């Protein structure tokens, strides 16, 4: 139990209650400065910042996943399109070099794990490449002309059968949905092309031509039935 107050205690308490609501005279206390020091570590601001960071991280992860999914999803379709949109190999078999890239593309088409249904050109119009180039240049030139010039040209220049013919022969792409097996069957029917860089020579050891020896060292098998000789 607290004893009754001394007069001094009462008087001191009363005097301190009368103190102004300011720092003591001569003090360098600055409430704003103290607040600035204290404010960053106050509770309330930190959780909001943490939540914001978490949201940003989640959004970034979602964006990365979406972009990678789109990339993986669209890439095979683009590959197939590039393969199917090529001019058919049968049309120019001798001019086209058969290299590793072409072989890889053929393998990609034959891959059983790829989609079963693919797009493929149906109507193939065999047009010589020189014709195609001329037609394209002509079409571009005509479309680039102003309308006035075209009208005057149509009146003055007699119509030649070559121009409409050329325009008519521009192949119009059409697509048909076929099964992958059909593609495979067609590919099997086609004459197969083999690489000629590596070969096996059978027969007696003869004199090699210098240029052949430089390109690839041949494997020579002797004509004998005994394997240890």
């Amino acid at each position, binding site marked *: 139990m607290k004893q009754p107050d001394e007069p001094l205690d009462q008087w001191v308490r009363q005097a301190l209650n009368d103190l102004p609501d300011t720092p003591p005279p001569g003090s360098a206390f600055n409430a704003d400065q103290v*607040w600035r020091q204290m404010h960053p570590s106050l509770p309330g601001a930190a959780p909001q910042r943490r939540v914001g960071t978490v949201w940003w991280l989640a959004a970034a992860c979602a964006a990365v996943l979406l972009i990678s999914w789109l990339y993986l999803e669209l890439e095979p379709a683009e590959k197939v399109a590039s393969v199917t949109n090529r001019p058919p190999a049968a049309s120019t078999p001798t001019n086209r070099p058969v290299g590793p890239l072409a072989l890889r593309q053929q393998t990609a088409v034959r891959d059983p794990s790829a989609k079963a249904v693919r797009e493929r050109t149906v109507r193939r119009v065999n047009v010589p490449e020189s014709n195609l180039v001329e037609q394209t240049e002509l079409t571009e030139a005509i479309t680039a002309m102003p309308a006035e010039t075209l009208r005057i040209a149509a009146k003055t220049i007699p119509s030649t059968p070559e121009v409409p013919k050329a325009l008519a022969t521009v192949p119009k792409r059409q697509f048909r949905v076929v099964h992958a097996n059909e593609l495979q069957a067609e590919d099997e029917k086609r004459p197969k092309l083999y690489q000629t860089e590596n070969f096996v020579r059978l027969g007696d050891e003869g004199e090699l031509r210098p240029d052949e020896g430089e390109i690839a060292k041949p494997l020579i098998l002797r004509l004998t039935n005994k394997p240890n000789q």
Partner: protein
Amino acid sequence: MQMSTRTGQEMDQQLIEQCKRGNAFAQKRLFDQYANRLFRVSLRYVRNESDAEEVLMNGFMKVFRSISNFAYRDDNGLEAWLRRIIVNEALQYLRANRSLPLFQSEETAGIQPDSNPLPDMGLDAERIYALIRELPTGYRTVFNLYAIEGYTHREIAEQLSISENTSKSQLSKARALLQQWLTNYGYEATRRTS
């Protein structure tokens, strides 16, 4: 008058509610409202100003951390709660810096204020406040807790880890020293209060 008091109370209540939600603007308003007053409280326990600022900062951090547990009744309740936190923080600071207990080694004889506090001023509240700050740490702490904050000797003994008798003796010595200083300034406390 009564109307304005009620409006002020409602505003303070809203201020507390906003502080509970972590509103920085409300926190700043509450800090501005009580910072100077509580700085003076802190300075009564911790003589050094930078230490008192540290006590104030730590105290307000605790205030904002534990404000969700505070139930607002009136302004006096709010201020008493804030003062209690600051006082506890100051005592903790004194304990951490081994300023307590210093009771046995201190002698009252011959102790004078370090400097003549506020010599140009009369014997007003500011001078009394300055004289209290000049008391030795042990006297000052017990006098502050008993005479100003209203703690009992048992509570002081628990807070400072001393015996009740030590608290009582420290208080009487603090009073005697303060009385002596005041008399030197020409003040008779008993006559003034009666």
